[in-house]
């Protein structure tokens, strides 16, 4: 069975370590906050100028002045802080964020990522994604392995305009956990009940399968 969005988030949450400062992108990455174990303390960064992001507010505590980078209303934790956009990106560019998780349209076997533009169809802009992928040492991409037509999104080369080059090292899809090496995607874990053959079929880029590939533990 392919993983649900929640299960992708659940698997990525296992990569989170105590003390991390984390930037979570819009979509699946946002869900990760729900699966971080209680004994691990992390601080969530939102690039619009918030460190120590708390849960969504109640009707009583909602405040138009307090949003996350996805423009959702949020709260701030007691150890949190606010700052302006240039300081927020100094945290990112300066390498102070320990983990970045974001979505993608396509990832290439060399670690290129395309996530911001579909020429002629969709032009929304890159937001902070280009800054994040250019700066972070530790980036995980959360994405579907194939598009709705069943075509692979893990490619030899990205076909869409790039967000960054040679920057992605780990990917969690609905089918697998993969790492990016000098020689291509390396299959590390399978989603429960998904065969290695299904993953090979769904991956256009070079896929390295070495030894027995364990099932993901969620």
């Amino acid at each position, binding site marked *: 069975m392919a993983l649900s969005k929640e299960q992708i988030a659940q698997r990525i949450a296992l990569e989170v370590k105590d003390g991390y400062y984390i930037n979570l992108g819009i979509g699946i990455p946002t869900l990760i906050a729900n699966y971080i174990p209680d004994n691990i303390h992390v601080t969530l960064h939102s690039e619009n*100028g918030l460190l120590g992001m708390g849960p*969504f*507010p109640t009707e009583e505590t909602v405040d138009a002045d307090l949003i996350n980078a996805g423009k*959702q209303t*949020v709260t701030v934790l007691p150890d949190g802080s606010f700052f302006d*956009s*240039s300081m927020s990106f100094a945290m990112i560019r300066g390498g102070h964020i320990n983990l970045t998780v974001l979505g993608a349209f396509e990832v290439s076997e060399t670690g290129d990522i395309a996530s911001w533009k579909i020429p002629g169809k969709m032009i929304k*802009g890159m937001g902070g994604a280009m800054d994040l992928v250019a700066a972070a040492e530790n980036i995980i991409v959360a994405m579907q392995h194939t598009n709705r037509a069943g075509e692979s999104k893990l490619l030899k080369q990205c076909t869409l305009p790039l967000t960054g080059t040679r920057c992605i090292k780990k990917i969690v899809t609905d089918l697998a956990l993969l790492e990016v090496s000098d020689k291509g995607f390396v299959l590390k874990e399978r989603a429960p009940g998904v065969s290695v053959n299904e993953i090979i079929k769904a991956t256009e880029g070079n896929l390295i399968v070495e030894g027995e590939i364990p099932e993901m533990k969620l």
Partner: protein
Amino acid sequence: MLKQVNSSKDLIHLIKSGMTIMAGGFGLCGIPENMINEVAGSDIKNLTVISNNIGVDNFGLGKWLTKRQIKKILASYVGENKEFEEMLLKGEVEMEFVPQGTLAERIRAGGAGIPAFYVATGVGTEVAIGKETKEFNGRTYILEHGLTADISLVKAWKGDAAGNLVFKDTAQNFNTGMAMAGKITIAEVEEIVPVGQLNPNQIHIPGIFVQHIFQGTNYEKRIERLTLSNQI
């Protein structure tokens, strides 16, 4: 010179067609609603607008768009405005997409008198096309230029007649940098307090960066994505 005026009406004469205008805010959070509405009610046009976003359909900077007052925009994300996306796909407005961190730093640099700086953001993407590159410690960086504006429109929580500003929560965002980068900076605030009442230790923008200030009225403070904890 008195910095404090009564309302946006007293300052609209400063804004002329063809100017470059910075407008603070992230999405609809912390946008200068009064000055945006004042410009939307005028016949000013051909503006170059520098803003992280471009409002939503017919609210915030979306109003300028509906009235075709914008010639060119520099922004990082315009996904919340369908009208703009359509205009862009049809080529009715010029657009320069700037990565959000690069945008923030270009504005900060402009306000701080730094003409250009190197960043790794955008290397190998279309953002890097036509830009000078240089290697530092084996990594390639691109040269990005500082930005200034004829007029910066910013919104703060509290301010005083000296132009000192204090922001609240995430409504600070681009307002701080833009206050520094405007040749003329117009600050609208929710509350003007008497000089001496703001704690000098806690001022985000010292009054030196602010040429005009007024207490705004009728803030709508629209929420783009109301998300409550009991909804999920």
